[in-house]
């Protein structure tokens, strides 16, 4: 057997390690958009992946349907009982909507935070090693997708766009561990309680809803929605339901645990949400205030926390 590491090979190995470190540094730099070779690879592979995904989703959907057929009778009975209430609610909603429109017209309000456009996309891949919670979808810049748009299923919010290529893009799910993966949300009660959804609790699979006011009266079963205050997401997209809550480790705020309404494992089609309301005056950078706040916090916590990507 020839010797493993002659001098030449050792040098090649060292050069490779240097390249590795350089590449890691390059890819960890903040707010990097994909370079064209990466876009080329993702798009061409993505094209093949959609060819594989479509039939697989179809087969998986077929088995799911078989499962559902079993519960059909029961569900149908419950739905019928709800149907009567629905008619009454519909009248009320129409009435309120008309009322709301009139009032908004009289106040000359043209925009509100919950207006958005929707694009549907097919999930084409998911990283097999599961160290990150990223999924790929088959819509990209050419279809008008931009970084940081909200992504949801019909049941609720699942994540946001983290990288875009020409014909595909990558979605970072809410369950991802990245520290900058953070969205502004509120819990719906008599008073709205505002906070941030930050990462997932591994043991229970619930999302952490942090930085809630210490005096806020949290109840189990409260629904959590996006607030639209981060400037990128529209408001009132459903995230989940509070299951437990506790005071955080420093006793300064509360943390609630939110059971997401969307199923992060079983994703086939997703909706990409584009907020139609403009975020702020173009001259004002929405991040400036946050960065200052964060820096102060960092000094206090003595922690090297990445600058927040509030959305």
């Amino acid at each position, binding site marked *: *057997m020839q010797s*493993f590491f002659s001098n030449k090979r050792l040098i090649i*190995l060292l050069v*490779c*390690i240097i*390249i*590795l470190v350089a*590449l*890691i540094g*390059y*890819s*960890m730099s903040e707010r990097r958009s994909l370079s064209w*070779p*990466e876009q080329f*690879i*993702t798009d061409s*592979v*993505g094209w*093949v*992946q959609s060819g*594989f*995904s479509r039939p*697989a*989703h179809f087969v*998986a959907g077929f088995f799911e349907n078989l499962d559902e057929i079993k519960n059909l009778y029961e569900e149908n009975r419950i739905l019928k009982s709800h149907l009567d209430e629905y008619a009454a609610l519909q009248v009320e909603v129409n009435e309120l909507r008309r009322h709301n429109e009139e009032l908004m017209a009289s106040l000359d309000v043209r925009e509100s935070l919950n207006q958005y456009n929707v694009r549907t996309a097919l999930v*084409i*891949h*998911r*990283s*097999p*090693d*599961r*160290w*990150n919670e*990223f999924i*790929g979808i088959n819509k990209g810049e050419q279809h008008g997708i931009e970084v940081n748009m909200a992504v949801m299923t019909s049941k609720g919010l699942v994540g946001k766009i*983290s*990288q875009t290529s020409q014909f595909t893009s990558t979605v970072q799910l809410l369950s991802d*561990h*990245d*520290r900058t993966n953070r969205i502004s949300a509120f819990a719906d009660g008599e008073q709205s309680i505002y906070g941030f959804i930050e990462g997932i609790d*591994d043991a229970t699979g619930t999302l952490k809803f942090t930085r809630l006011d210490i005096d806020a009266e949290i109840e189990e079963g409260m629904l959590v929605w996006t607030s639209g205050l981060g400037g990128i997401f529209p408001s009132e997209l459903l995230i989940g339901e509070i299951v437990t809550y506790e005071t955080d480790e420093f006793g300064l705020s509360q943390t609630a645990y939110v059971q997401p309404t969307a199923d992060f*494992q*079983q994703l*086939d089609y997703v909706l990409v949400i584009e907020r139609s309301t403009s975020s702020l005056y173009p001259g004002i950078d929405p991040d400036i205030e946050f960065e200052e706040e964060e820096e102060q916090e960092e000094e206090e916590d003595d922690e090297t926390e990445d600058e927040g990507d509030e959305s």
Partner: protein
Amino acid sequence: MIRYLLFLVLFVFFIFEGTVFQIFASDMFGTPYIFVPRWVFAIIIFAGIYRGRATGTMYAVILGVIYDVIFMSILGVYAFGMGLITYLLSISIPFFQRNIPIIVITCMIAIATLDYYIYGMMLLLGLTSIIHEEFLYTRFIPSILINFAFVCIAAYPLKKMFQYIKRKKEEAETV
């Protein structure tokens, strides 16, 4: 045509890992275990043993780069790890080539090393905070089992495939 057969096989398995396998993945049915398929990597180790160190390392780096670009937010991690491990474990001597159990063991060593290398990198880069026991029980052991099953089933067909490629290449050279 025969030159691209191996790459085609690797690419199809690569696509399969990311799409079909994920759609029918285990956690859909509620188990807490995470099964990470490393089938492409197993085939690359086979390629390293049957087709030589240079070929194996080349495929490892190419597939590693594709893996990095498509699935990882960090570039270079897989390309380097897969390349290095394949380089070290591509022992293409006839004793290995004849002995399927030895190849299976080599594959499992390679996959185990890669899994631990990736876990180490993720900890180092601060992308995960999973403690070692949890990694061992929910990810490492289930993944090793599923990969072991795959390698055992695929070893014989793969051996046949590499022998076929070798035969075709020799024929092409003599003609």
